[in-house]
C-alpha cells in the first residue's frame, strides 16, 4: 500500500468505518447460543431484511430482470408443452399498466387508449388491485424513491381518484380489497423505537365511504402479505413465535397455518408459501381440509391460481426472465408450460393474467393449458404492474361517479362542512340525469352574510359529472327525508 492513492483510499475507508457505530454484543457460547443481545438482534435483523424487502423485492426482482439483456430459457427437458407462441388469442379484457414513473395506462386490444394518468405523481406504481366488481382499482404508490407510500382508490374507467391517499408501508403486499368493496385492509408504519431494528406495523381497515381508518391489529413488527380471500382477511409473519398466517374473524385473529396464505378457493383449498422468503415465493404447500402437503420439491415457486383439483404455480428460473407454469394435481406434477416471467397472476374467468412486470401481456388459459401473449403498442418502455378488468366493468356504468367520489366531494367542502358526524350517499335516477344524494350531519356552515350553523344537509350531486347541483340544509340532527329515499346504486 505504497501509492498516494492507496493511502488516501485507506484513510477514507478508515474515516468511513469510524462512523459506523458498533452495537453492544456478546460472545457466543460454545453451544452456539449467545449470552446477550446478539442473537435476537441478528435474528430480527435477518427477518427484518426479509420483511422490509419482501414486497418491494418482488418488484425489485422484476426490475432486475427487466434490466437484464440475457433471457435464459428453461432446460428443454423441463418443457412438456409448447411455449407461448401467440396461437391462442389473448382475452379481450381491458388492462391497466402501471409504470415505475407513476403513470397508469389504459390498454384495450393491445393498444394504449387515451393519455396515461400520473396516478402516483412520479413514484412507482407498486401495485394495481381491481376491486371484485372491477369498478375500482387500488393503487399503491411509492417505494422508489424510498419513503412512505400511499394507497389510492381510483375509478377503473376514468382513473380519477375516488378515495385516499392513505399512508401505507412502501411495499406491494400491504393492502387488500374487502370482497364487498366497501373497505380496504392495509398496513401502516407504526411505532419506531430507536432501539428496535425495525418499526412496528399497524393493520388497519380503511372504510371507503367515511374515509376513516380503524386499527385492528396494532404495533407488531414484520407483518406482511395482506390478503382478503374467501377465508377472510389474513396477514402473515415471518418470525417466531407467530410464524405463519392469521385470519381475522371480525374480532379476533386466529392462526391458520405456519405458512403464508396466498390463494384460497371457495371450497377452502389454499396455496401457501414458506414464510422465510417473504413474498418472494419459495416452497409451496397445498392446504385441503386441514391437511397441508408440499408441492414444491425444490426451487422457488409462486402460487398463481387454483382450478378444481389443480394447483397452478410459477416455477422460477433464477436470474432470468423466464420460468414455467407448473400444474399440479395433488402432489403430482401434471404439466409444465415455459413462459416469460409470470411471478404473480390475477384470476379472471378462466384465465390467469400475469401481473408482473413486462412489455407484453401474458395470460394462461385454464382451459387451453397454454399462454396467450399480446404485445402492447403505445406504451413507452416496460410496465411495472398489470391489472385486468372484467368486461362487465366496462360500459355498464360509463358515466356514473362512484359513491366514494360523491362523498368525497362533500367532505372536500371543508369551509362549509366543518364537522362530519355521519355521512351517507344514495343514487337516484328518477330523472334522465342520475344524481347522488349525500346526507351529512355535523356542523354545516352557511355561505351567507351572517354565520349560521346547521346540523345536517343533503347535497345533490350530478352522478355523471360529479358537480354539486343543489343543497338543502336543516336543523334536524339527520335529514329524515333522506331515509325514505331508495338507493338505486346496487352497491356501486
Amino acid at each position, binding site marked *: 500500500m505504497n501509492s498516494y492513492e492507496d493511502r488516501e483510499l485507506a484513510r477514507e475507508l478508515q474515516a468511513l468505518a469510524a462512523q459506523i457505530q458498533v452495537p453492544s454484543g456478546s*460472545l457466543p457460547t460454545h453451544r452456539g447460543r449467545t449470552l446477550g443481545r446478539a442473537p435476537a438482534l441478528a435474528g430480527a435483523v435477518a427477518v427484518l431484511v426479509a420483511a422490509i424487502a419482501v414486497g418491494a423485492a418482488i418488484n425489485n426482482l422484476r426490475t432486475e430482470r427487466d434490466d437484464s439483456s440475457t433471457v435464459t430459457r428453461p432446460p428443454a427437458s423441463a418443457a412438456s408443452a409448447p411455449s407461448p407462441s401467440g396461437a391462442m388469442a389473448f382475452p379481450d379484457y381491458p388492462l391497466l399498466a402501471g409504470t415505475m414513473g407513476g403513470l397508469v395506462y389504459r390498454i384495450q386490444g393491445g393498444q394504449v387508449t387515451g393519455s396515461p394518468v400520473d396516478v402516483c405523481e412520479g413514484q412507482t406504481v407498486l401495485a394495481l388491485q381491481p376491486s371484485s366488481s372491477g369498478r375500482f382499482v387500488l393503487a399503491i404508490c411509492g417505494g422508489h424513491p424510498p419513503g412512505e407510500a400511499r394507497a389510492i382508490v381510483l375509478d377503473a374507467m376514468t382513473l380519477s381518484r375516488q378515495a385516499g391517499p392513505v399512508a401505507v408501508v412502501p411495499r406491494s403486499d400491504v393492502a387488500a380489497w374487502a370482497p364487498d368493496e366497501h373497505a380496504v385492509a392495509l398496513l401502516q408504519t407504526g411505532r419506531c423505537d430507536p432501539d428496535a431494528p425495525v418499526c412496528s406495523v399497524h393493520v388497519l381497515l380503511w372504510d371507503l365511504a367515511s374515509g376513516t381508518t380503524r386499527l385492528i391489529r396494532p404495533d407488531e413488527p414484520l407483518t406482511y402479505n395482506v390478503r382478503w380471500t374467501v377465508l377472510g382477511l389474513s396477514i402473515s409473519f415471518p418470525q417466531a413465535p407467530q410464524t405463519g398466517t392469521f385470519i381475522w374473524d371480525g374480532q379476533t385473529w386466529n392462526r391458520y397455518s405456519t405458512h403464508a396464505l396466498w390463494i384460497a378457493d371457495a371450497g377452502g383449498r389454499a396455496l401457501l408459501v414458506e414464510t422465510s422468503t417473504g413474498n418472494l415465493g419459495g416452497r409451496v404447500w397445498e392446504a385441503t381440509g386441514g391437511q397441508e402437503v408440499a408441492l414444491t420439491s425444490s426451487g422457488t415457486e409462486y402460487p398463481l391460481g387454483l382450478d378444481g383439483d389443480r394447483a397452478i404455480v410459477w416455477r422460477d428460473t433464477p436470474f432470468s426472465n423466464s420460468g414455467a407454469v407448473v400444474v399440479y394435481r395433488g402432489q403430482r406434477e401434471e404439466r409444465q408450460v415455459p413462459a416469460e416471467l409470470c411471478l404473480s397472476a390475477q384470476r379472471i374467468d378462466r384465465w390467469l393474467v400475469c401481473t408482473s412486470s413486462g412489455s407484453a401481456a401474458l395470460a394462461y388459459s385454464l382451459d387451453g393449458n397454454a399462454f396467450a401473449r399480446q404485445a402492447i403498442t403505445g406504451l413507452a418502455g416496460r410496465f411495472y404492474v398489470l391489472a385486468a378488468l372484467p368486461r362487465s366493468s366496462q360500459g355498464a356504468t360509463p358515466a356514473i361517479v362512484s359513491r366514494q367520489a360523491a362523498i368525497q366531494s362533500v367532505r372536500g367542502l371543508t369551509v362549509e362542512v366543518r364537522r362530519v358526524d355521519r355521512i351517507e350517499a344514495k343514487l337516484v335516477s328518477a330523472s334522465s340525469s342520475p344524481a347522488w344524494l349525500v346526507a351529512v350531519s355535523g356542523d354545516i356552515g352557511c355561505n351567507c352574510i351572517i354565520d349560521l350553523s346547521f346540523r345536517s344537509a343533503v347535497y345533490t350531486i350530478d352522478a355523471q359529472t360529479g358537480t354539486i347541483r343543489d343543497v338543502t340544509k336543516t336543523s334536524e340532527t339527520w335529514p329524515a327525508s333522506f331515509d325514505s329515499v331508495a338507493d338505486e346504486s346496487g352497491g356501486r
Partner: protein
Amino acid sequence: MSDASDLAARWAAVYEQSRPVLYRAVALMVGPAEAEEVVHEAFERAMRNGAFFDEVREPVAWLRTACARRALTRLRRRRLWERLRLRLAADERSELWEHADLAIALAALPPRDRIALVLRYYQDASYDEISAALGIASASVGPMLTRARAKIREALT
C-alpha cells in the same frame, strides 16, 4: 484456572479486541444491518473447534477471512435484492454518514471487489489472505483491486 475458563478468557479477549474492527469491516461489505450476524457466525464457527487456538496461528486473521467469506456468500445470495438494499442503505447513510459518497460507491461495487477493497484498505490484509477469502488466485487480487479502485474513483469524481 481450569482449561475451560482459560479458553473462555482467551475467547473473551479475542472478541473484545477484534470485534469492533470486524464489525465495521463487515458493515462496509454487507451493510450494518447484517454485520452483527456475520461476525457472530464467524465467532460461533471458530468456537465450535475446541482446538482452535492450537490449530490457528492468527485467530484474528482467521476471523477476518471467515467474515469475508460469509459476507461474500450473503452478497451473492442476495443479488436480486441488492438494488433495494442499496436504496435503503443509501437513504440511511445520507443522514448518518459524512462519507456518504464513498459509502454509496462502495456499496455499488460487485461483491468480490467490495470485499477485496475492504480487506485490503480497511483491514490491511495481504494479497494471500484476500485470495484465500475470495477463493481466487493470488495473482488476480492486484488487478481486482485496481479495477475496484478505478470504479470508486469514477464514482467519486
